[in-house]
Structures are given as structure tokens and as C-alpha cells.
């Protein structure tokens, strides 16, 4: 067989393989889009037709404009019910707060672990590994107990959005520290030494030299922490008791009934919820690959 034919066949084989992978990856996404457009009152489509019969944006309209009647401070008063907007505001607050806490605490801790020699340095890094290996729900009970003991005014910190941010940050910090420490290790010490010789303090060196250089790793940390705060609902449903503090992920969870689920609305809500993550991903895209690969190889 001529070499050219061989190459063509090889290329065709590769393309078919890649196409199969693409279909495999895209199928669930297409299914969700199809369900979101399906206006029929069925539990799930019996077959996949990308544009289902009677397709409409009714589910999107309902999710975006109608109050969530299960999530009301006063169940008898529809005005006290959460709307997509109020849920979005809470979710943004929690996700951004989690990102901020993770980056602020993670970067400073990672810098210390990367640059300073102190007792317990190795033990600390090992401890983070242990935490990374724990499933998120394993920390639920201790966090519940701890955050219940700390009061903000008359109520436990556990039942506030700030408490939720702290709980989420406790889960995202080990990864943040590990990832950022790896990245800081790759930054030449000579740069800091030059800054110190020029009269900068250690803090100035950190903020003016290290942080700007670590933007890719910081971007990864922000994205991971944001996603954790944006999508989490198990801790949130356990901790929060005031519906006015509920988040989008909690609302999505509340749509999943014990016996039935409005799949069209559920799918529409899932799609809408994923948009901010997609937007953030695109905004940080140019930093992400570098941030993950460099931070990941140096321990």
C-alpha cells in the first residue's frame, strides 16, 4: 500500500476516533439542551431529538421570571420567595467570596511555604495532602459544629453566607496552597533578592514582584474556588436556614423532587447556571494552561 494512502487511512481512523469522543462528550450536553427546550410534561424524553416537538423557551422564561415557590421566607407570601435574580446575587457573593478567601489566604500561605524555612513546613504540606484526599462531605460535621459555635450577632456563623464562604474556602485552600506553592517555587529567587537590595520590604516584594508573576496560578485558583462555591449544595442545604440566603445551586437541588422532577426547568436552570462558569473560563483561559502545568509539576 502506498505511503500516501496509508497516511490518509490513518488520518481517517484518527478523525473517526476523535469524532466518536466528541459525540460521547457532547451527547449529555445535547440531551440537556433538548430537555430544556421540551415543553411537554414528561419525566424525560423517550428518544433524543435535538429539537423536540413543540420546542419552546418556556422553561427558560419560567426559571428566569417566576418566583421559586419552595424557597420562601414566608410560605404564605409569594413576595418573600426567592427569584432567579436574588439567588444569582447570593451565588455570586458566595462564589466570589470563596475565591477571594482562597486566593488571599492561599497565596500568602503558599508564599511562606515556598520561601521560608520553619518548623512544621513539611508537615503542613503533608497535612494539605491529607485534606485534599478527604471527600468534601467528610468535613461537614466538624464544620457544622465549629461554625455553629461562632456567633455573628445572635445567629451562628454557620447560618450566614460568610460562614458558607469560610466552609467552602476550607475545602479549596489545600489545593490553592499546593498549586500556588508549586508555582512560586518556579519564580527565581534572584528577582526577590534584587527587589530587596533595591529597598523593598518582604511584603512589597510579594505584592509587587511575586503576585504579578503568579497570575496564571492565581487564575486557576480563582476558577477552582469559584466553581466550588458556585456549584456546591450539600453543605449549603445543611448549614443555611433562611431562604433569603439560598443560592442557585440550592434552588437547582430543590427542583429535584423525591418522586418527580420538572426536567425541562431543571435543564434550563442547569444551562443558565453554567453560563457564569463558562464566561469566567473564557476570561481566564489564556492563564489556565500555564497555571495548571507549572504549578502541578513542582512540589
Amino acid at each position, binding site marked *: 500500500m502506498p505511503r500516501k494512502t496509508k497516511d490518509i487511512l490513518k488520518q481517517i481512523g484518527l478523525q473517526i476516533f476523535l469524532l466518536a469522543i466528541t459525540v460521547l462528550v457532547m451527547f449529555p450536553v445535547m440531551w440537556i439542551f433538548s430537555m430544556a427546550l421540551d415543553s411537554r410534561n414528561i*419525566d*424525560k424524553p*423517550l428518544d433524543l431529538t435535538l429539537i423536540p416537538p413543540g420546542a419552546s423557551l418556556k422553561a427558560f422564561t419560567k426559571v428566569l421570571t417566576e418566583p421559586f415557590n419552595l424557597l420562601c421566607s414566608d410560605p404564605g407570601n409569594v413576595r418573600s420567595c426567592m427569584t432567579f435574580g436574588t439567588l444569582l446575587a447570593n451565588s455570586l457573593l458566595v462564589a466570589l467570596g470563596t475565591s477571594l478567601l482562597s486566593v488571599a489566604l492561599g497565596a500568602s500561605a503558599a508564599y511562606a511555604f515556598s520561601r521560608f524555612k520553619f518548623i512544621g513546613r*513539611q508537615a503542613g504540606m*503533608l497535612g494539605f495532602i491529607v485534606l485534599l484526599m478527604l471527600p468534601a462531605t467528610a468535613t461537614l460535621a466538624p464544620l457544622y459544629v465549629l461554625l*455553629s459555635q461562632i456567633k455573628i450577632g445572635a445567629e451562628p456563623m454557620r447560618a450566614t453566607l460568610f460562614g458558607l464562604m469560610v466552609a467552602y474556602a476550607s475545602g479549596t485552600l489545600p489545593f490553592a496552597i499546593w498549586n500556588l506553592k508549586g508555582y512560586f517555587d518556579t519564580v527565581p529567587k534572584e528577582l526577590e533578592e534584587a527587589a530587596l537590595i533595591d529597598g523593598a520590604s518582604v511584603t512589597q516584594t510579594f505584592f509587587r514582584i511575586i503576585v504579578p508573576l503568579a497570575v496564571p496560578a492565581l487564575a486557576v485558583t480563582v476558577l477552582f474556588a469559584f466553581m466550588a462555591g458556585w456549584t456546591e449544595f450539600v453543605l449549603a*442545604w445543611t448549614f443555611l436556614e433562611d431562604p433569603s440566603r439560598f443560592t442557585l445551586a440550592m434552588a437547582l437541588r430543590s427542583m429535584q*423532587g423525591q418522586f*418527580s422532577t420538572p426536567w425541562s426547568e431543571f435543564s434550563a436552570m442547569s444551562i443558565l447556571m453554567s453560563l457564569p462558569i463558562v464566561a469566567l473560563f473564557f476570561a481566564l483561559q489564556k492563564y489556565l494552561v500555564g497555571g495548571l502545568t507549572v504549578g502541578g509539576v513542582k512540589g
Partner: protein
Amino acid sequence: MIKKFLPLISILLIAAFALAACQPKATPTPEPVVEPTAASAEPTAVPVVEPTAAPAGLTGTITLWHSWKENEILSLNDVIAAFQAVNPDVTFDVLYVPFDDLKGKYETATATGGGPTVLIGAADWGPGFYDSTFIADLTPLVSDEFLATINPAALGAVQYKDALVGLPQTLKGVLMFRNKTIIAEPATSFDDLVAKATAANTADIQGAALEYGFFFSAAHLDGVGGKLLEANGDPAFNTEKGVEWANLINRFKETGNVFSYSDDDVSLFKAGKAGIIIDGSWNTSSLAESIGAENLAIDLWPAPLSGYVQTENIYLNANATGDDAAAGYAFIEYFLSVEAQTLLADATKAGHVPATLGVEVTDPLLQAATAAFEGGSAFPVIPEMGAYWDPLNNALKKVVDEGIDPVVALQEAYDLVVAKVAEIRGQ
């Protein structure tokens, strides 16, 4: 040298911290209005409240957690409004929690001395909650006259270890639904069901789309004269009657495709492509909405089929004390009154099958469900029941899907159940 031991020292330190955190002192201080519950194998002392024949002049705040859906919340609001009309000084703090999160949230909150005053939840949570001292024993609070007003079969679902762990507030369970436009008349026996279903089969329509998942088919064992378990939780299904049951379920295939814990049968029914399905009473309103209430029928079980009948219960938190506990119990008792149960039976709202005797039900589907429940079997609410689900579901799958001999499949399930029951009992 020291550096070498650092990881070891670190791990020891972490372990020490972890152990220290597990000490009893780590339990949080209970919130002011709540009495802490000591972790003990013995059931907790019940809240000190006097029995309330007719709620009036009460004060306090009732925190109520539930996982009801929107239509049910409308009825719940009606009940709360009616209660508050008599007790204007009682305030309510009502919180919806998704069903899958409600149990865990209640356990976590109650274990740390908090939680709601009143919980509406599944019947099978009761024994576990009681053993963990999360709920109060209502025995000292309830009068015999009051208990006599409750459906005796439903009452069985809240009696555990000589305690009344809650009160049943509605009946629900497995029913046989029929689309009258596909199969006009109800089946009188299983053979008649097969005949009617096969006659209705077309290229597009399945006469009967029967579900054989364990929960939906276990009660047929009672229907053939067998039983799943003894009163103490020991398995009793590995008998000739058990084999008869497995063979009966294997015969479901004579009607066409069969389903195990799949929504496909419900989807077919809703799309008007299935004549008969076996499903939960909780789906009645959505089925009626899909095919039209006038086309939907709930049939009496054709012999020897049967369905599980469960209750949904209302519980009083063991941590509740003082005015809140008194108001909470009064509300629970009111919940079971004819007045409240009538509100909850409103078919345009909750549409609950009443657990209290003497409640007039006017909706035809609700009447049919009530009649079908009379021919059903009580769902066992003991902790040992947890040992039966997977082994028997797998056994049924082996018989129906793989053609394994029922005797072999049931023996395998029996061995697994015996081991799991022992595990549950801590043996």
C-alpha cells in the same frame, strides 16, 4: 535525622488533633432555648408538655421542616392559618428542605442540640431517629381517645419499641394506574390483566408497562400468601410462597416490556402509550394532568397482586422544650384532626389520603386510592428492612432479566439478607 522524622511527627500530630477533636467536649454548646441531648443508647426523655385536647392559648415558635412540594405547601399554609386562628400567639418558621437533604440536615442539627420543633418526614426514618434520641416519644402526651381517631393500620407505622415515635399524617403507597382510553375496564385478576394488556398491545402502545423493582413488587409476596419478614426482622421470603412470588413477577413479561426502577413506564403512561402502570400515589396528580383526570383510573389490586402502603409521619424533636414543645405537640395533634386532614385532602392542593378516620373524601381518584390502600400491605418500618432492598431487587432482576431459577436467586438473596440483618443488629 530530625528531618527524617518530621513526616512521622506531622502525621502523629494530625492524628492527635483529630482524636482531640473527637472528644465529647468538642460538641457545641446548645442554643439557649434548646435542651441538649446526651448521646445515649436509651431513648431520650420526652419534652415536658401537657396533653392538649384542643389547642388554645398557646405561645411559642414552631419551627417546621418538610420536603413538600408546591401544591402541598398550599394545604400546609391552610392548616397553619387554621391553627393560628385559634392560637394567634404561636408563630411559625417553616422551611422547605429537599427530601434527599432533609434527613441529614435534621440529624446534623438535632445531634448538636438544635433542629426544628416539628419535622414532617418519611415513616422509615422514625425507628432510627428514635434510637438516636432525635425524636420524642409521644406516648405520654397522646390520649387513647385521640389514638382511636387514627387509622389503625397507619398507626402501626409509628409504633416502635413500645414507643409512639410520631404520628402518621397521611397514607401513601404503590397503586395500579389505568388509562381508561386504552383499557376500559379494570382487571379482575392477574390473568385477566395479562389478557387485557396483550389485547391492547399495538406497535405504538403497550397495554401494561409493569414495574418490578423491589419496592413496587414486594407486596405481591403478601398477595400470594407469603411474607417478606417476621415481626422481629428475620427473613421469611425463602419459601415456596417466595418462589411463587418470583414466578409471578417473571410472568409480568407476558404483557410486554417490564421495568425496574425506571421512569420509562411513567413516561410512556404520560405520553398515552401505556395502558396500565404500577407507580406511587404521589404521582397521581401529574398522571392526571398528563392524560386528563377523566381518563385516569386507580384500580383495586387484581388478585394476587398487592402494593405497599406507607405513611408519612410528623415528628416532635426531642430537643424541643417549654412553650415551643407544647405548641409543637398541639400542632401535631391538630394536624391529625378531621378539620386539618380535610384541608390536606383537598385534591386541588395536597390531595393527601387522610390518616384520620371519618374524613370525608370527595375526589374520585382520592377515593379510589383509599379503597386500593385497603387491599394493600403495610410497609415494614423497622431498621432491618434496610437489609432487604438490594439483595431482593437483584434476585428479581436475575429471575426476570437473566432467567435464573427463582429457588437459586432467593437462596442467594436470603444469605445476603441474613448477613446484612446481623450487621444492622451489630452482631
